[in-house]
Every structure is written in C-alpha cells, then in structure tokens.
C-alpha cells in the first residue's frame, strides 16, 4: 500500500502544484485570489463527485484536485461563478469526450481554452516572470523522476523542438541570443511542458506516437504564438493535438501489436 502511494505520480503533482499555489497566495508573487482558487477547487471536487456517482465509479478526487490546482494557477476569471463554470467544463470534458475508455483532452487545458475563447476568462502568461523558472525546472524535473520517467520523453522532445524553432527564428531575424533566452526563460512554458503535456492519460501510448505528438505541439504552438500572435499558443495547440491522439493510439498500437508478433 505504502509503495503504491509513493509510486502514484499524482501525489507528487498535487504536492507541487498545491505548494506553488500556496506560495503564490501567500507571497502575492502571483496575482491570485484565494476565493477564486477555492471556487475552482471546491466546484471541481463536487462536480467530479456527482459525475462519479452518476457513472457508478469511485470518487476520483486526485484528478479533480490536480485539474483545479492547474486552473487556479493559470486561469483568471472575472467572477467566482465563472471559476466554478471553468471547473465544470474541465471535469465534464473527461466524461463527455472519451475514446476507448480514455479521455481525449487534458481537462484543465480544455477548460482554459474554452473559457478564454468563449467566456470572459483570460490567462496571464507574464505572471511567472523570468526568475522563477530555475526552481520550476528543478522541481519539475524532480517530479518527472518520481514519475519513473514514463513521459519524460514528451516534455524533453517538446522543449527541444521548441528551442530549435526559436533558435531558427532568432537566427533568421538576426536577434540577439538574450532575446531567445528571454523567450525560453519562462515559467509558463516549463509548467506546460512538465505538468500538462506529460499527462499519461491524454498523451499517446506508443513512443513513436509520443514523438509525433511532442513535435506537433511545439510546431503548432510556435506558429500560433509567433505568426498568429496568440500569446498562449501552446495551450491552444494542445487541444488540437489531443484531438489526434486517438488516431495516433489506434495507428501505433496496431502496428506495434503486429510487430510484436
């Protein structure tokens, strides 16, 4: 039982995201309203409970907590009711969009995109500044190690592809190295890379599919951000790429199954 508890990467994720939220609330480093965080967390847990009861499953509080902690850190809403609504969108997406028993979208990411596009919510990508990244990187890496490296490849390939694209752009424009460093030295990017796209439930199962997934994320995110001027292009890219994951899983599971014979 004890070993099981330590092996569950979600516990580390809860501790990390929860810790980050507490520091953000306490130090006012992040412009977060604790009532808003409560609205995210409370409504996510409640909605998860109700939907679990309706589908006769055990209460998956860990997943709901991780989702709502991510929402608290990333999404800003003008009212508490909209925060609750965002949690509703996130949790409900897990029940509504499934493929072979696995949900399609990362719930927090899906809710952020929906709320930013169609409701009055917004994301503050600048809030992380350019100093917190080191600690985020280290803790993020620690988290990945604790996950026993099940999805490290996704985060690393994504980051490498993104760095490569930025370097190419920077070389083409003749921009100084510091500018590229500034673009990379970004807490939001690292949080996205280590905590959102590495979700084992919504990333592909096959290693080759995961490479395609990570590269596609970097390319689409980069194009959205630098050619369509969407400040958080990555988040939008993830929703689009997640739509293709069922296809990737079908494609690559079959092949690898055949090769296995």
């Amino acid at each position: 039982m004890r070993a099981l508890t330590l092996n569950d990467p979600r516990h580390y994720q809860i501790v990390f995201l929860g810790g980050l939220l507490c520091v953000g609330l306490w130090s006012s480093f992040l412009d977060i309203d604790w009532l808003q965080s409560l609205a995210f967390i409370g409504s996510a847990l409640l909605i998860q409970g109700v939907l679990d009861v309706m589908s006769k499953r055990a209460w998956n509080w860990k997943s709901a907590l991780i989702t709502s902690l991510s929402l608290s850190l990333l999404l800003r809403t003008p009212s508490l009711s909209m925060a609750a609504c965002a949690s509703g969108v996130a949790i409900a997406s897990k029940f509504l969009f499934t493929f072979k028993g696995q949900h399609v979208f990362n719930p927090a990411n899906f809710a952020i995109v929906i709320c930013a596009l169609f409701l009055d919510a917004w994301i503050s990508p600048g809030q992380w500044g350019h100093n917190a990244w080191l600690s985020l990187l280290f803790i993020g890496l620690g988290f990945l190690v604790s996950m026993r490296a099940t999805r490290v490849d996704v985060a690393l390939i994504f980051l490498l592809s993104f760095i490569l694209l930025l370097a190419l752009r920077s070389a083409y424009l003749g921009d100084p190295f510091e500018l590229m460093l500034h673009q990379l030295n970004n807490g939001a990017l690292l949080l996205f890379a280590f905590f959102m796209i590495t979700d084992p439930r919504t990333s592909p199962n096959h290693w080759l599919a995961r490479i395609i997934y990570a590269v596609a994320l970097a390319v689409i995110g980069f194009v959205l951000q630098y050619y369509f001027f969407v400040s958080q292009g990555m988040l939008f890219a993830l929703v689009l790429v997640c739509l293709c994951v069922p296809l990737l899983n079908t494609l690559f599971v079959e092949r690898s199954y055949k090769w296995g014979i």
Partner: protein
Amino acid sequence: MKRYLNQLGSIVVRVLGVAMVSGLLFATQAQAFCGFYVAKADTKLFNEASKVVVVRDEHKTVVTMASDYQGDAKEFAMVVPVPAVLKKGQVHITNNALIDHLDAYTAPRLVEYHDSDPCRPRMMHKMARSSMMMESSAPMADSAQAHGVKIEEEFTVGEYDILILSAKESSGLQTWLDQQGYKVPEKARKVLGSYLKQGMKFFVAKVNIKQQEKLGLTYLRPIQMAFESEKFMLPIRLGTVNSKGSQDMFVFALTKQGRVETTNYRTVKIPSNMDLPLFIKKDFDQFYKDMFNVQVKKENNRAVFLEYAWNMNACDPCAADPLSHAQLKELGVFWLNQQSGPVPRQDSQPNLRRIRSSLAANVYVTRLHVRYDAKNFPEDLMFQTTNNKRNYQGRYVMRHPWKGKSSCSMAEDYFARLPQRFEKEAQRLVGLTDWSYKDVRARMETTGQPFKGAAKPSKPSAPWWKGIWND
C-alpha cells in the same frame, strides 16, 4: 450541475465547430510602438521618460506618442517601426495638455484622513495628488532607391515632416538614414533588420522648422497614428540601443474591455493603500520616486508596474476630472463616435467625490509604468487586453491622529495605541523606500507623530485581564 452540463453542452458544440474548421481563429493582439529618438548631429538626447497612449479595440489601434525632448527642435527626429504603410489621414498631431490631463487623472495619489474623536468615531478626508511622475515629463527618393529603401508615403502634418519607409535590407536603410543626416547607432542595424524581416515599415518624423514657426510653437507636440494590426505591442528595442541607461515609459491603455497587461514580462501592482507617516505630504514626489526604485530592484528590473486601472467614468478619489468626451475622441477613442448621451455630470468639488457619467462608461484606462534597458528588456513589450475590470490605483494615506481633548476609556486606549501605529508606519515607509529608519523616526517626531507619550500621555496600559470580573 444540470446548469453546468447544459452550458457545457452548448459550449462544446460551439468550440468543436469552430476549432475543427479553422484552428486559427484566436483574435488577440495588435501592434503599436514607441520612440526611438535620433539626433541629427551628435547631440545627446535625453530620452528618459516617454508617454504613450494606446487606444485599442479588436485590431484597431490609435497610438499617441509624447516625449519629454528638451533639446533643439532642429535636432529632433524619431524612427518608429510600424506594422503598415500609413497615409496622411492616419497621422495626426495633438496637444500636450491632453496627455498631461490623462497623466494627472491616473497619477498615484496621496489621501489625507483625520482621526475622529475616539469617543465619537467619524471620519473626514481630503486628497492631494502627486504632481510627480510625468512632470518633467526627390534626390532623396533617388538615393533611397539606390539603397533599396522605398519611400512609401511622404507628407507633412502640423510641424512634422513624415516619411513612411520600407526597405529590402537593414544596411541600405541605415546607410540612407545616415546620408539624410539621421544618426543611427551602429548597433541599431540588427534591430532594424529584425523589424524589416517581420514585415514592419518605418515611420520617420522630423520637425519642419518653417511650419513650427508658422504655427508659433516652441515645443514638440505628440504624434498620433491610427492603424490596424493583430499584434498588440510596443517596440522598445530601438530605444534601448540608443540609450546608455534605463528609460522610463508610461503606457496609458484605453480599451472597451478592461485591464491591459504585458504577456512577456511580469505586470506587478505598485504597492498601494497603506498608511504612511504624515511628513510624506511634503515629500510625496520623492517618496514615490524612491519607492518606485525599490520596487524595480525588488523585481530584478524586469517588471512592468500597474499604477492605475479604472473605468473612465469614475474615480475615487479623483486626482483630476475624468477626461471629457471630446478629449477621449481626440485621443482616438473611436468607438465613442457611435455613442451619444448627456454631458458628464461632474461634482462641484471633483477632488473630493466620486464622479459618474453615463457617457464614457465603456472606456477603461490602465496606466503602466516601466523602466527598461537593453539588458533586462531584450524583447518588445507584448500586451493583451483582459476582462479584468477591477479597480486599482496607487493610493497612499496620511492619517492625522486626533488632537482634541477626549476623556473616556476608549480615548485612553486610542492614545496608548498611537505609538505602535506610528512605529508601523515608520517601518512600512522604510521598507518601501529604503530611507533611513532613524531619519524617518526623527521626522515623525517633529511632525506630530511622537513614539513616546503620544499626542496625549497615557498611563501604562492595564493588564489584559483587568476588567474581566468586576471584583
């Protein structure tokens, strides 16, 4: 729950419909700029505080740029990257008083309160505004062609001669600018090249002395430009190349939607709403400057500070009257054209009361203050408009202790607690400004805030348990 599910259902249908058809529907950002001042001779330019007003809704943008350039008008020139070729009707000159008014309206403010008789609690306040912050606050065409530079537009507006340039490459542009007498620093070439590759044009303005004399002007007026762009940014990179140290810029953003913030730098609220020692009334400007310096350092010189965010139809307390309909229109608030309504009702004592009018109801103003240099701000400022309509202002409070005679148990407690309150104010001020604690205390002592034996000498306070039982 059902409500959530219903809502979710309709949202899901909408998002899938849109996202599948065109994944790239995300309307966000626009493009603007700010100055890069070039001397035509080797005149050192003082380019330390510029003011930019950005009016933006959807992709439509009107930018007003004002500088505190104090030198000879003949020496003044300005090169600004712009997202598109601007025609004469898109450029306009306005007056400095307009920007000064917007500055005054949004400036950090000092508020004064007087403690009421502790035996009869009630309050009065009056307000003083900071005056600081902004106070200081033909052959050609042939040659152009030879250097791969194209003069897209050429016109005179007010006292300025304006050129809109496009170029094939930065070296040609730089050589041509040099030949025309604009001293462009060598380091600027790469930056010019980067902007060119991003499809930007260059807006070049210099003063037409004859026109200036004809208009009877002895100072430079702000230049305005209207254009449409999906990028919402201010190009600061040319300005950092030109400057040895850091520069201050104030960005006043006027939107329909709500607060504006930077997406690639931290936007930090300036510390506000706190009680401070009474003597800062005399030194408010110095206090604010020193506090700003400390905050900049605290954020490792890499933050943009929010000094004011409010709907333009109100203020509380008002540092100046909200801008009138005509002033907002002059600034380029184009959506007011579609509105009509009564003249704003303003109080006879606007500095004391909240002002409300129905007219400017959908103009939201954000005042951002940034101190930038090449090292800490390598990238242009990118912005986004959010739906955040919460009010915010830099507001500092002086609370005068009660000086009257009072005799009741509440008064005893009140006077006994005063030194503690003064101590907190002193420490807060020292923390904010890095001023010497000793000096702060000494100045407080001489301005009616003694730390010992406050306004009224008080007896040592009774133990907490005294009075629980009336034995």
